């Protein structure tokens, strides 16, 4: 019989808990309010997506990528499409590229809005969450115009995008770009520079640059640690090399570099940059095809390829092995949240229960892509 250590209390946080952002279970050993060890248990959402991929044709798998990171379906669609296109070695029409960038960046904004909102509601302020939802609604409307869906878009397909944009989409997007940046100021006034909020997040769960690299942390969480690494700049795909945008990095404005507040603020800065990118793309618009000529029955040449793209939550990679048939031989998905979650046990020794919530919230993990 195992000996129970009576100094500590085991506390199951999740799988159903308001701030585990899905069905994550954290087994916490606590001494009163102080957490001594955290063990994440995952897999509650396992759907064997990688195995499913082996039984479906290449285009058929696209809707499944929507279900990876459901808050950034466009970006997941995009990474998968890029992977298959790399093996196919086809040229994507210019218009399709611009459309892809617009959708990816709009989706990045909407995903970061949720990250911003859910962290704020984890910190006990519910109003900013609904402000985030309000702006996301606008983006959802835009996506509904182009593809009819509001969550799982399935819009970016192998070879281009599913269909051309409808009339009025450009105007509505411009309207959004005028409407959105002032809202960021509102978020900052309401939440980012709120004294209690800073107190809750500054100097909490500092990820040092070395740790970030060791654990494979990517995306805004990596940049918050002061490492300027953005795949849109380092390995430009689509037309990102033609676009002018900054890559914000954590500067430790309110505490140490790489603390929870920096991670939070990265999302705010990136939303501004994404809005800037969308504006440039709209100016670059030109006529053309929205999709390249892709055969109905898609046979992908045999080979191995790993393609990664910058998702809102970090580096989403697809490792694809093709045997020349219509179905992938093997598809491995590298989910950013999985690596980001792996650092939680290291960060949470000796913190308080409330900090643990801040850690999970500031890492902005999403469970469907962890469990796959």
């Amino acid at each position: 019989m195992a000996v129970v250590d009576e100094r500590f209390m085991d506390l199951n946080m999740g799988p159903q808990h308001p701030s585990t952002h899905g069905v994550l279970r954290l087994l916490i050993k606590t001494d009163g309010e102080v957490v001594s060890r955290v063990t994440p248990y995952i897999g509650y959402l396992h759907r064997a997506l990688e195995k499913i991929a082996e039984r479906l044709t290449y285009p058929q798998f696209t809707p499944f990528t929507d279900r990876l990171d459901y808050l950034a379906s466009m970006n997941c669609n995009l990474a998968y499409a890029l992977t298959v296109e790399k093996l196919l070695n086809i040229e994507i029409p210019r218009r399709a590229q611009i459309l892809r960038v617009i959708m990816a960046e709009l989706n990045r904004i909407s995903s970061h809005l949720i990250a911003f909102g859910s962290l704020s509601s984890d910190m006990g302020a519910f109003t900013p969450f609904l402000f985030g939802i309000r702006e996301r609604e606008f983006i959802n409307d835009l996506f509904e115009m182009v593809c009819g869906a509001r969550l799982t878009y399935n819009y970016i397909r192998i070879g281009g995008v599913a269909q051309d944009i409808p009339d009025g989409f450009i105007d509505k997007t411009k309207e959004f770009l005028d409407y959105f940046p002032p809202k960021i100021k509102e978020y900052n006034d309401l939440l980012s520079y709120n004294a209690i909020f800073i107190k809750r997040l500054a100097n909490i769960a500092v990820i040092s640059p070395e740790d970030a690299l060791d654990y494979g942390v990517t995306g805004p969480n990596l940049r918050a640690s002061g490492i300027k690494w953005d795949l849109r700049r380092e390995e430009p795909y689509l037309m990102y090399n033609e676009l002018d945008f900054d890559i914000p990095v954590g500067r430790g404005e309110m505490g140490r570099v790489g603390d929870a507040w920096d991670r939070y603020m990265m999302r705010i800065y990136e939303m501004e940059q994404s809005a800037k990118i969308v504006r440039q793309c709209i100016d670059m618009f030109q006529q053309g095809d929205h999709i390249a000529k892709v055969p109905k029955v898609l046979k992908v040449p045999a080979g191995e390829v790993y393609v990664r793209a910058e998702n809102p939550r970090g580096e989403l990679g697809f490792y694809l092995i093709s045997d020349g048939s219509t179905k992938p031989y093997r598809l491995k998905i590298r989910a950013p949240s999985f690596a980001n979650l792996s650092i939680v046990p290291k960060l949470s020794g000796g913190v308080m229960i409330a900090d643990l919530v801040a850690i999970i919230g500031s890492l902005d993990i999403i469970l469907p892509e962890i469990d796959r």
Partner: protein
Amino acid sequence: MVDYITILIYALISIVVFAVLLSTVAVLTLAERRISAFMQDRLGPNRVGPWGLLQPVADGIKFIMKEDVIPLEVNRFLYILAPLMTIIPAMLAFAVVPFGHDLFLRGRVINLQVANFDIGILYIFAIAAMGIFGIIIGGWASNNKYSLLGGLRSASQFISYEIAMSLAVIGILMVYGSLRLNDIAQYQGSLWFGFIPKWGILVQPLGFIIFIVSVYAETNRVPFDLPEAEAELVGGYHTEYSSMKFAFFFMGEYANMITASALIATLYFGGWQVPYLHNIGFIFPKLGIFHLQQWLVALIEILSFAIKVGFFLFLFLWIRWTLPRFRFDQLTDLGWKVLIPLALLNIVVTGALMMLRII
């Protein structure tokens, strides 16, 4: 000889106060939802009755009809006792709050309050301290780790802030020299330099800030709502409660808010006082007297009291939907390291100013 009519009048007053308190709780639940909806660009409940006014009734029916779950391993006696221990003190505390001038009816002096104790403020502290037991016992009896943590948080939070709150009120006691809330309200009608009403906020600005912060902590409202922090502790002490038992906790919280607002108004904003209004009418310095009937004066005062309480209730909601929440250690730090020293300083400064006869 026992004066039956006086007893009857006070019985009537207590019934009216109880009814008004309960209906204010009901209205407040709706107000909270409507105001938060307004702040968040939503509509809020607007389906039941005109402007959703009947929503509290629908909520009440819902709570009564719901299954009353008592989990297996709980301590049944304490589990049932806890919600009652929350709501009863919350309702009782209001008894000493005055809401108007004394009325003179055929030789009888009628206080416009349920009970005019000599120990008014002490009574409120004592009763409010009872209320916190409900939360602690509820957290313990639920046999749930989250509830237990919520109860523990509540206990330490209460200890930290009760002291600061009492110390802040000592300043008021020194200035006004009475524990009776009615007297305190009465004295705030007197004038400073002949024209500034001596309201608590002007006499005790620091004390007011300490008091209002402590009161927010005492009532478990944001930014101090740690015992029920839903992001961390799911529901905190009321995680396991359902049906009317949950409703009792809920109503207790709102009743506490009302009492707290009434206290803030009484101690620091003159209670039922309207500047320059006396029981014979308005007396303006150097301008003359404007006579009013006694009942009209009482009506104006009750209205003034209601407006002040309403404003502080709104402030509660406003802050609730704006601010994030403190962390547990930051909360106790604020209580012990900031508020209590400040409250002591406030007492010293008040004493010095009284020696110098400034206040």
